[in-house]
Every structure is written in structure tokens, then in C-alpha cells.
């Protein structure tokens, strides 16, 4: 399949390894990956903070970049959720019927990575090897907006060497919430401290999820505490193979 990758602005800037892993994984599964270079940001921060009208040029940019794609895949559930739920809502009062049609036509072809693999391609074992103790945090957008359900867990269970530990109170938000994390810093950190407590309680080495943004929040707290526990995007786990580890140590 010809897969157009929507990398998202923060993966491009802060977490290139997540994008690289997504490319490696999809190519290993025999797909052709394209990266339309005129893509930037879906506009989520703007539309969630009350600047939905200002973000309309970014909707137009996204449509222009991906209009001809067979499928669009993104390693970010919150960006996919923004595209699926906010785009048409933002355009309601604009008279731009052509853009509305383009968005309605494109949205069904936009997938979050784990949903693409499990639901669209029907793949669960992607041939990955990752000898680590891992816990999975279902981010709010993947859980409630995209309803990815068991898809990421099915993928993780099929990874050789991986010890999957269930996270208690997993459905509780980590406290990121985009600009919420800085506008309501105290409450955000109060939520984070409870999330870190449950992550650390699993004694996992790695906490994984479908969103680099939420992982940046959980990982930022865990690093500040020098907990030794890291956050890793699901794509990076799925991209790993035996060749990446020598005597169990990551190269």
C-alpha cells in the first residue's frame, strides 16, 4: 500500500525517532511510505485553546498535502482525533463548501498507526523484538475519541521478548491536555503525580502510548524524578528487531 505519513509538528521537531520508527515499521511490512514535505501541523493546539478560526489555514494546508493520498497514517492519536472531529466543526460557518467536501472526503482515509495496522491491515504480529518490561497507558484521545480499544495491546502482546504489565487506573488522564499543562500547571502536575505512582508501581522499565505529547508529559515527570523509567512511543517498540539488540543491550 502507498502510505502517506503525517508526522505531526512535535514528532518532527522533538521526537524524530518516532517518525523514523514508523517509516522503518511500515517499510518492513512491505508498504511504500511517502512524506509530503509541505505538511506541518494539524492545528490541534490552536483549535483546543480557542483559536479554531485562526487554524483554518492549517486545515487547508493539511488537505492540500494529503488530498491525493491512498491512506494517511500518523503516530499520534490526538492529531488524528483533531482531524476527525474538529476540522468539519471549525468549517461550519465558513462558506468554503469545496474545502468542506475535501475534508469529508479525506477524513475516512486518515488513520492512527495502531488502528491502521490492526483494523485496516489486519496485522497483529509485526515481527518485533523488544526484551523489556513495558506498561501501556491508553491516552484519552486514543481511548475515548478514536476508541482504539485493544489494538495497541494486541500489537504489544505479539512482540517477542516483551513483558507487558497492566497499568492500574489506566484510563485516568495523565494531566497533559495541551495548553492545560501550562495554564493549569498545579492541577496538571497533581494528575501527573498519580499517573507516575501507578507507572512506577508496575516496576516496568518503559511506559508506552500512542501519543508523544502525553509521553512527553509522563516522561518529563519521570526524568525529573530520576526514576530510571523511560517513555517510548509504540512505533519505536514495534520497529525494533533482534538486530537492534546485542546481548540484550540496545545498540
Amino acid at each position, binding site marked *: 500500500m502507498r502510505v502517506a505519513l503525517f508526522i505531526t509538528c512535535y514528532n518532527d521537531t522533538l521526537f524524530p525517532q518516532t517518525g523514523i520508527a514508523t517509516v522503518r515499521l511500515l517499510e518492513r511490512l512491505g508498504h511504500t511510505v511517502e512524506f509530503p514535505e509541505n505538511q*506541518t501541523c494539524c492545528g490541534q493546539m490552536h483549535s*483546543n485553546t480557542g*483559536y479554531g478560526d485562526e487554524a483554518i489555514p492549517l486545515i487547508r494546508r493539511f488537505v492540500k498535502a494529503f488530498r491525493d493520498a491512498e491512506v494517511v497514517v500518523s503516530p499520534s492519536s490526538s492529531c488524528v482525533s483533531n482531524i476527525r472531529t474538529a476540522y468539519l466543526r471549525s468549517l461550519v460557518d465558513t462558506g468554503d463548501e469545496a474545502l468542506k467536501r475535501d475534508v469529508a472526503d479525506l477524513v475516512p482515509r486518515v488513520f492512527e498507526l495502531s488502528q491502521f495496522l490492526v483494523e485496516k491491515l489486519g496485522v497483529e504480529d509485526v515481527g518485533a523484538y523488544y526484551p523489556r518490561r513495558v506498561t501501556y497507558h491508553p491516552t484519552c484521545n486514543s481511548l475515548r475519541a478514536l476508541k482504539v480499544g485493544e489494538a495497541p495491546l494486541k500489537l504489544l502482546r505479539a512482540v517477542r521478548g516483551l513483558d507487558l504489565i497492566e497499568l492500574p487506573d489506566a484510563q485516568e*488522564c495523565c494531566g497533559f491536555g495541551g495548553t492545560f499543562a501550562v*495554564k493549569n500547571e498545579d492541577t496538571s502536575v497533581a494528575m501527573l503525580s498519580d499517573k507516575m505512582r501507578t507507572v512506577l508501581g508496575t516496576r516496568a522499565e518503559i511506559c508506552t502510548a500512542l501519543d508523544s505529547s502525553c509521553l512527553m508529559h509522563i516522561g518529563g515527570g519521570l526524568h525529573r524524578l530520576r526514576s530510571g523509567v523511560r517513555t517510548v512511543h509504540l512505533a519505536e517498540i514495534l520497529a525494533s528487531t533482534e538486530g537492534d539488540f546485542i546481548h540484550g543491550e540496545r545498540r
Partner: protein
Amino acid sequence: MASAAERHTFPELAKRAVADTQLRRNIGNATQTIRAKRAAVVAEVPDWEDLREAGRSLKEHTLRSLDRYLVQLEEAVTKAGGQVHWARDGAEASRIVIEIAERHSVKEVIKVKSITTEEIKLNEALEAAGIRPFETDLAELIIQLGDDVSSHILVPAIHRNRAEIRELFMRKLGLTELSDRPSDLTAAARTYLREKFLTVPMAVSGANFGICDTGTICVVESEGNGRMCLTLPQVLVSVMGVEKLVPTWEDMEVFLQLLPRSSTGERMNPYNSFWTGVMPGDGPQEFHLVLLDNRRTDVLADRTGRQTLNCIRCSACLNICPVYSRTGGHAYHSEYQGPIGAILTPQLHGMESAASLPYASSLCGACYEVCPVKINIPEVLVHLRTRAVAQSGFTLEKLAMGAAIRMFDNPRLLETAQKIARVAQRPFASDGYITGGIGPVRQWTKARDLPAVPSQSFRDWWRTRR
């Protein structure tokens, strides 16, 4: 109600709340307990999702023809011997209640728990007119005796524990001996209240539902204090928001299943009181229904905001909310707290007095998932954020957001910004993490590290492959 600039913002109040060990424990325990109870009784109902949809569509239907239904209710109540009053705002509603009390030379009234009367500050208005209101709901009594403020729409004293209530009752009810056993605390309140039920000649209530075809008003409560107030006094006044209507008696089948399971986690609510006008020789001999607008028709006129009026005040969204369960209700500085408070307060009291509330959410969506009438609270929150931005003047945030759009709308500018960030972060970065900074980075890094911008972006890597 007059709107004033927001004096206490959510972040300021929440900062204090999350640092309060006792509060965190009280609220954390209470919300966890009630969440589990709700989840268990909702799971028992095989057609729960159908019930939610029925509740939502009944509310939507009624609100779409509210003009017609309000007149139908007025006619039915009047025909049954009740008197109907229309109040544009809280001041008008309070004046109507006070006039009724003065006509009967009443100096004391007993009250059924009612958030609507809190919304219009009725108790303050009554006291100013020399009339003393007595709250009879146990939690409302605790709030009133403690000169406290409600922190939960269903369980107003949720922020208090048994030891604190024991101390309050001993002090305010003049008791020399009292244990902190719930049964003893309830008995103390009962002794105090019984005399009021038997002697005070007028009661004021809110209303959960107004049934249009029969003219019946419904109050749902758990302690029996409501039943006493609704049956013993000679005069009964009910203040009801205009959104509380349901078309027919039959529709109660839906709401009396949705409400108790969502609110207290019970299969059936203990006391469901229904009354239709006046019954000669039985119960109150004078019944007044005050229909309150107080900006509800403005909410109705707003395409996205109007779903807020579906609310049946169950409080499931408060209990499930990760923000509420850590800050408690006082941080919302409103009689409506939690996710529903964050959308209702700015719409009823004016955005300028509550502009920080639409931002008091991580948009996690748990509230929408549990709402028995399917209010898409995250959608309304985002909609109200847009209004808050539109109503605010110049802010640094607006400037930054505008600049960010220009950057994101031009891949070259984005790349330039990435390059600048790699240089600008140097004073704050070590070993791949930023630990301090200015503006939003400072807020982030107070308690969290931030990954430094790496030397190669994904875009850079992609080009190396070509």
C-alpha cells in the same frame, strides 16, 4: 445576575486546593467510592446506551419547542390550582418568593436542597428581607451552619469528613456529647430539623422535572427532608429553571432510570415526590411555581452551547473528572462545579466573570462518556474557549498564537524556528533535557523536564534518505 470581572481564577484557587492534604484525601476517597458505585449499577442495565439516547433526544425535542411546552405547563399547573410566575432573572425570582412570604407574614422558610436557588442567591435575598431560610438537606445544613460554600452539586459537603462535621454540630447545635458515627450525626441533625418541619409555615424548593401534560412537578431526594418540606407547610414555592421540562408523565420512565444510577449509584431513588397543583385538605394549600430564565434562553439560542440545558444535575461528570477529583469544587468558585460547572457557569453568569473555567479541563472526555443525557462537554468547553478568546482584549497569548500560525503555515519558517530553538535552548539544556526557561516553558519545567530539540528533525532525516 450582575456580572463582574473574574476575581478568583481557577488556576489560583486550584493551586491552594491541590496542596491541601485533607481535602485531597476527602475528595479523592468520595469520588472513587461513588465512581465505583455508578459503574456497577450502570453495567447492570443492558440498554443503558439506548436510555442515554432516549434522555438526550427527549431533552432536545423539549428544548426545540420550549415556547409551546412552557405555556402547556403553565395551563396545566393553573388548572390544578397552582399559580405560575415568570422570572427573567434571579432578582425577579427572589422578589416573587419574598412577596409570597410577606403576604403570609412568614419570617422563616424551610428549604429543600436546590442549586437553582443558590444560583440566584435566594437565601441572601431572603435574609436581607428579614426572612430566615433553614436548609433541611443534611449536607446543605452542614454548609449553612458552617457558613461554608457548596463544593459539589449533589453532595455539597463532600469536602468535609466526619470529624469536621462532629465538631461543627457540637459548636453550632450546642451539644456537649456527640460521636462521629454517621447515625449519631444524622440523629443530631434530625432533632434540630424536626421542630422546623412541624412549625415553619412555608417551604421553598427547586424542581428536578416539570411534566407538561399533567402539570406535575417532581423533586428527587434521598433523605425524606424534601418530602417533609413538600407536604407539611401550608405554602410551597418551587423555583424551576425553564429547561427542566419533560413533555409527558411517561417520559419520567427514562429519567428516573438515568438519574439515580448516574448520581448516587442507586437503582431507584429513595424519595421521588410528585405533586400536581393543590389538593384541598391535603398538603400545601397554596402552590407557586416560579419559572426562571436567567440567561437560559440565551444558552438555547447558541447552537453548540444549548446541549448544556440537557443537564439533569446528576453529578456523574464531577465524580469521574480527573480535575475535579483533585481540586474539589471550591476551585470553580460557583454553585455549579466540575465539568458541567465549567460550561454552565460562564453561560449563566457571563464569560467575563468565569473566563478561566472553560480552560479548567484537560479535555480527557470522561465526562462525555458518563453523561446520562450525552452532553458533549469537551465540545462545549472548546466552543466557550473560542468565546473567551473573542471577548478578551490584547494578550501575549494571542500574539504568540498568531505567530505560531504563520510559522506552521510555512514549512521553511518552521524549520527556521527549529534551528533557532536549538540555539536558544542552550542555556537551559543539559543531557538532552531542558530544565528551565521563560513563559510557558517555565510553567512546564517547574515540575517536569522537557526534551531538548534534537540536532536532526524528522524532515532532516527524511532528506538524508533521498
